[in-house]
């Protein structure tokens, strides 16, 4: 590992996994670049109607 450690992380993908990871890292004190290919974040989960097994709204 190189000596000069940089206190930032790049998260590639703005779906549910990427967003969760980015928030955790930012809250832990790291600068985060969240990179998403599409014009907005949210990923596949935003397209779902309800989620199992609680039938909660996915939005």
């Amino acid at each position, binding site marked *: 590992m190189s000596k000069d450690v940089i206190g930032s992380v790049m998260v590639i993908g703005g779906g*549910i996994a990427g967003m969760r990871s980015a928030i955790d890292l930012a809250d832990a004190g790291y600068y985060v670049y969240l990179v998403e290919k599409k014009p907005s974040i949210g990923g596949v989960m935003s397209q779902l109607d309800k989620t199992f*097994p609680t039938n909660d709204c996915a939005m």
Partner: protein
Amino acid sequence: MLTLSEVKQVTGDAGNFEVNLIQHPRYIDESKCIACGMCAEKCPKKVVDVYNTGLVNRKAVYVEYAQAVPLKYCIDAENCLYLTKGKCGNCENICPAGAIDYTQKEKSLTLNVGSIVLAPGFKSFDPSKLDFYNYASHKNVVTAAEFERILSASGPTMGHLARISDKKEPKKIAWFQCVGSRDVNKCDNAYCSSVCCMYAIKEAAIAKEHAGDDLDCAIFYMDIRTHGKDFERYYNDAKDKTGVRFINSRVHSVLPIHGSDDLEVRYVDESGKLISEIFDMIVLSTGFETPPEVVELLNDLDVDLTEGNFAKTSAFNPVATSRDGIYICGAIAGPRDIPQSVVDSSAAASDAGEILSSARNSLTTVKEAIPETQVVGDPPKIGVFVCKCGINIAGVVDVEAVRDYAATLPYVEYVCDNLYTCSQDTQDIMADVIKSKNLNRVVVAACTPKTHEPLFQETLLCSGLNKYLFEMANIRNQDSWVHKNNPELATKKAMDLVRMAVSKVALMEPLEEAELEINQEALVIGGGISGLTSSISLAGQGYNVNLVEKSDVLGGQALNIYKTASGEYVQENLSALIKKVESNEKIKVYLKTEIVSTEGFVGNFKSVLSTGGEEKSIEYGVSIVATGASALEPDEYNYKTDERVLTSLELDRKFIDKDPELSKINSAAFIQCVGSREPGRPYCSRVCCTHSIENALELKKLNPEMNIYILYRDIRTFGEREYLYKEARNKGIIFIKYKLDNKPEVVNKDGRLIINIVDHVLRQPVEIEVDLITLATAILPPDNQQLASFYKVSVNDDGFFVEKHAKLGPSEFATDGVFLCGLAHYPKPIEEAIAQGKAAASRAVTLLAKKKINTIGTIAKINPMNCSSCGVCISICPYSAPSYIEEGPFTGKVKINPVLCKGCGLCVASCRSGAINLKGFDNDQIFAQIYALKEAV
């Protein structure tokens, strides 16, 4: 946040990567776009809407969905008439904010980062190449993703269940499972996509909810895989209560019926009969695939892939890729559901942060606080800012009239209207006005507090006002946008809303956000594999850990396991992990120790530990519950009466001890679901199918001639575990399916060990003689009640802890500062327990890293003089914020812990003595709003 961006190249090493990115132009200035949507209204070009899975069209200038973040429009350069042909320009002409910029160019960026987390997701398998399903040629054959949009209120049919071809309400819908999964003949995806069984059941149940009981839903499946927490119950309910039909059959042909839009489905049922049924709609449960561009990216990054094109990981390092400093989460780690993705993503954050902990906070900035002006005791001096929002409000509401009306209201000192109140220059003007006019209350009449309250509060803070001296009147989302055709009434409503806001804000008081120190130590309860992992992650991020273990050794259930599903030896890896914990000076291990009592709350917990009767008190800020689970001791199948009948873990023990007797066995059987998926224990233990198959293959390795039978109900080798199932069948292991009402019978016939079972293929009773029977026993949680009461958390009907949110908060509790991992949450294999151990640590670090917590200002406060000590608030509060005062003049009365209070107001409404106020939503403030209605009603 970098949207419309793609990674092109990564150089460097862990701790110091250089990443080259391409950012595609949005052709809209994000800082100017106000998301009014006028551009899309005027755009003449219709394009297929990918968000709605192509079922409807959108415009070439668009926002993906109504709640998109960032809520900024975007021009689709491939379809925009101006950008492709140089004509049109409608959006530029209509945009009230001047945000359209056709000259934006693709940008190349270079960023330096310490680590990288990959979460590129998946794509659904495209069934159009399988012409057998008629997906491409028939409108009423849809994918599950498309059906999801059909069910959605924001979808093409606004949530009305109708088929695509003729908008008819379907009466019969069929789901086909495993389309593009578990199939090497028609596609190359041998793995199981893990989530399709559950989503198909969900879609069927919701469809019946929409359409009523006369809708017939049939799911055609190979094995039903409902191996997640509370999934089996969901399946049982769908089958027994909702009446979804489950048909264990692979459909053999689908024929469109000429002259109608229906489809004929032919299949062989369980009794071997050929059946033909006609359905209105067919939903294909399509599986996961890693998109080709992601495969390319991973190859470019030098990250190893599995045969299914997912990132390769080790069970003991489940979110680390083959390249140091690059971590993964979500579907790239293998097909998985949302909670598993969320667990992985926190785990990846933990790993990515751990290697950078020396540089923590080096690149983040902390804002300087501006001293607050004292306003208590001064008469209200209210400023009202009315927003036009371009023409979004002003096009309907007479903004000038609202502004002039506001000026007539009591205590209003200043009014103005703005084109865009939210723009940076207006914010600067607002701050100046507050200072120069000595305003001490502010009302903004504009869009909605849901999106813009924080922005305006920030401006108040910048001008030295307490941020709670603010109120918004919602005259866009709940007025101008919804009463377009009635400008007069909309204007009147706007005036009413402004009047209500003014009368409320006049009564607002500056509120304090209490600050509370967080104790920087952690407690981890349970020294099994997930507790060990959590401890190491926390210590790695620089925190002191107290690790408490009930027994006299570390390791937990993993001590009994031979190999992981990916074939890694558990014992070697486990001892390495234990050594790491024992040699870490930040981790203090307490063996043979139990928790006697716990008090306190997030940031300030205190527990008494008892080690062999000796008590010790410790203080800590966060707690991680990793209390594990154990194997059921069965009371059936001659266990205990015949030493040839073992449990899974006992067989593992023989493997670990290299028992020479094992290779001498001629025939062995495994019985699945022993104690799981039964009425008394209606959950699936998740790991047993894979584990038995793995052990069966190990036996085959010792003696390839051995006859091995696996007696099962559904084989649940989810994800890439499916390869093991395939290998087992290829190696001649015989799988026999049984039903709950027809369980196999084990008998001892003159010393011979015999199993009687009805073979599902032959439909005949068969007798199997074996030398060894292994029972795949259920995973049982310990009695968690006491611990649950210590931390005010709950356990479910099965005895597992209830997490904060089934999807989004799997590794934490509703009680702040308490986290969850491992088998205590739900049965799971080692790799998932490790991931969750890391995830719980990650979630805990986000709290510890703050050092202090700020409470919200809008919380409940009790006046002890009025409190009658009835205790209703204590029993009703979902967050355990109220408690009895134990000393001082008000002993016996109730106080509310400002740290735990979330400001819901439940206690305020339930207090019979009127002793509780809710700051910011107090009685007098709400009554002021109600009284201000007078003129309106």
